[in-house]
Structures are given as structure tokens and as C-alpha cells.
């Protein structure tokens, strides 16, 4: 599978000269299978560029939303397949005990926040609600599980043949814990990340920043590295960069985290435009 990062920023799009390498678009990752199937992880502003680069003969695309915070949704109405009735589009996202997924999405994709209503988008749009589920899309085997982040939020474990990628862009597994990391069964997200070939994980804050933002739902980078060590992943991509961090600052955060945690896995900084190949 081919994994491409179209948006790696957290919280707020932040284009500018200081964010050229890591990029300014918010969360969006695509996974292309060898059979031409496409998964899209989150619909941040990066999804617009992805929509411009999909094959012209695309018949189906599946968007897997981790949660419905704005930085993971803002690009959705700008995703080209939603204006093409020839493309069957499926949106998967966390269930809520209060409102359906479609009703919650409608809150953003409707006036006065947006001029077009979700019902005016593609007639071939389908919604699927998730909590702790295992399901298949084409040849992809996918597990979703709720993780620690404000409001219902899932992470995804996506496997194809013998390769697995785990996507946890917004995750604060250390919230309220007296010590971290702790045993696997008491660690949010562990079952999703366990032994993954590739982990894309929230590294938004420095330790110092995190002290004043506990409960915001994001990891400090050192604890994210510790989580990856606990899960014994093979390859780690720091992701969901803080909008206030410049390229140089993120470089420095990763360097410091490596020196502090001595990871045994490969690390590739989460740059917008990065493409990784996993297996076929």
C-alpha cells in the first residue's frame, strides 16, 4: 500500500514561509491499495489537493474520519469526488449516542457555517458509524477503536496482507495517568498500534507546552515516542504538528525526543507531500 500525507498540521491550517517543509494543511492521509482502492484518513484542508490528484476513472473512495473536530473536517466539502455522482463515496466515522454521523456532519456542512448543505452533495454518499469495529473495505482489513481525545474519537488499524499501518492523529493516552507509559492493557490506543509496521501519531506539544494544555487531547512528543516504544512499532511518523511550530522547531522537537527516548524504530518526520510504500 502507498501512504501519502496531504495534510500534517493540527488544529488550524497554517501556511507561510515558516511551515513550508512540514506544510500548513490540516490532517489528511491517503492509502492506495495495489488493486486501485483508495482510503482517505480524515478530511482536513489537505483533502482538497488529494481530490485533485485522484485517478480520473475512480469509482469508489472511502473517507475514514477519526472524529469531527474542524481541523479534520474542513476540507470535506472541497473534496472533488463529492461533486461527482460517478464516484461512490463512503464516509466512516465515530458513532455518538446523541446524533447520527450525518446529523453531526450536517452541523458544519450547512448554512450559516457553509453555503451548501451536505444533502446537496453527491447522491452516492453513504455514512457508516463506528466505535469498536472490525470491517473490510476492498482488500483492506480495518479495526477502529475509541481513544482518549475530547468527544467521540477513533483510531484506525489498517492491514493489507501482512502489513499494518496505525493512524492516531489526535491522542492523549497519558491523560490523568500518574505514570506513563504503563502496562499495555491500560494504555489507550495500544491494541491499535501493537506491532504496527507504521504508526502515524500525534506529537503536537513539547513537554513544557503540554503542562498548560492537559486535556486538550494531544500528546507531548516524548510521551508519543514512549507510546510507540511500548507498542513496539517498526516505523514512526510524528504528525499533527502544532500550528505555532515552525519547521525548524519541529525538527528540534524530533531530535530532542530521539535523544531522550532512544527509540529502536525508524522515524520519518511527517512532512506534507511525504509518500511511503508499505508492502505491495
Amino acid at each position, binding site marked *: 500500500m502507498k501512504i501519502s500525507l496531504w495534510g500534517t498540521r493540527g488544529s488550524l491550517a497554517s501556511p507561510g514561509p515558516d511551515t513550508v517543509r512540514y506544510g500548513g494543511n490540516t490532517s489528511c492521509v491517503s492509502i492506495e491499495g495495489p488493486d486501485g482502492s483508495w482510503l482517505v484518513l480524515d478530511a482536513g484542508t489537505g483533502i482538497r489537493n488529494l481530490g485533485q490528484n485522484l485517478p480520473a476513472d475512480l469509482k469508489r473512495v472511502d473517507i475514514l474520519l477519526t472524529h469531527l473536530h474542524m481541523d479534520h473536517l474542513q476540507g470535506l466539502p472541497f473534496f472533488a469526488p463529492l461533486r461527482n455522482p460517478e464516484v461512490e463515496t463512503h464516509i466512516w466515522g465515530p458513532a455518538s449516542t446523541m446524533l447520527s454521523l450525518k446529523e453531526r456532519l450536517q452541523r458544519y456542512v450547512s448554512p450559516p457555517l457553509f453555503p451548501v448543505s451536505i444533502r446537496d452533495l453527491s447522491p452516492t454518499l453513504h455514512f457508516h458509524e463506528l466505535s469498536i469495529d472490525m470491517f473490510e473495505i476492498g482488500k483492506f482489513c480495518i479495526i477502529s477503536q475509541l481513544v482518549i481525545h475530547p468527544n467521540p474519537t477513533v483510531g484506525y488499524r489498517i492491514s493489507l496482507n501482512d502489513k499494518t499501518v496505525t493512524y492516531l492523529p489526535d491522542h492523549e493516552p497519558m491523560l490523568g495517568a500518574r505514570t506513563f507509559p504503563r502496562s*499495555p492493557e491500560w494504555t*489507550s490506543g495500544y491494541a491499535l498500534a501493537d506491532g504496527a509496521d507504521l504508526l502515524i501519531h500525534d506529537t503536537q506539544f513539547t513537554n513544557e507546552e503540554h503542562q498548560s494544555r492537559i486535556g486538550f487531547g494531544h500528546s507531548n512528543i516524548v510521551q508519543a515516542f514512549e507510546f510507540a516504544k511500548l507498542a513496539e512499532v517498526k516505523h514512526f511518523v510524528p504528525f499533527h504538528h502544532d500550528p505555532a511550530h515552525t519547521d525548524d522547531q519541529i525538527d528540534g522537537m524530533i531530535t530532542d525526543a530521539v535523544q531522550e527516548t532512544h527509540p529502536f524504530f525508524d522515524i520519518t518526520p511527517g512532512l506534507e507531500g511525504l509518500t511511503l510504500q508499505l508492502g505491495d
Partner: protein
Amino acid sequence: MAQFEVEVILARHLAENLALPMFIVDPEGNLIFFNEPAEAILGLRFGDTGLLPASEWSTMFEPVEKDGKPISPEELPLVIAMTHSHPAHKGFWIKDLDNNMRQIELTAFPVIGQSGRLSAAVAIFWEVPHED
């Protein structure tokens, strides 16, 4: 390794930060966590015991009414929370590990996460002080 659901993990994190004794029980009745204030009453440390099967921990106390009449399991708040998925409260007496009778007020509630499934039940209790 199996992982507890996120609401159970958060319940433990809450327990660790409370000064009140708190138990967490899984849907099978196993005692999966108790905090430090609960350790003082149980006379056991969670770090030493880990998970305690229902058959083990449920016999540790002898819950009775004020007049010494035994309380059946189905009357206990934690059992009600687990079997009926609704909160329950009761005041009663227990015998601790040193054979001292202690009066407690106990509130139990089911933990039902966004999946809509019962994933645990929590009991928080207060010891009623007595003047001897």
C-alpha cells in the same frame, strides 16, 4: 495483549486521582482496579494482586445491615449497577481484614461508553465516622 476500553482506562485515571476509595469491576465481575484509598480498606495493594476474580474478592467482605442481617449479593449496589445497568446507592456495614466492622455508604454506577455497551461498573464509597 487485550486492552481495556477507553472509558475504563479513563475511569482508572479518575480513581488514581481521587481521595475516595474506588473499585472498578469488569462485566464478568472481576475486580480490575482499586485505588490507594481502597487498598487501605482491602488491606491489599493493587500492584501486588492485579486483577482479582469475582470469586476471590466478593468473599473478602461480609456486608451486613445495621442489625447484623446479611445482605444478599443482588441487593449490593455494584451488583445492581452491573446486572441492571443503572446506578444504585446503599449504606451498610462491612468487616474489614482486621475483623473490624466499618459503616460505609456506597454508590455504584455502570460505565457505558460511546459504543453503548456496558464495559465496567464503578463503586465509590465513603466510610461513616463513628465516635466510640
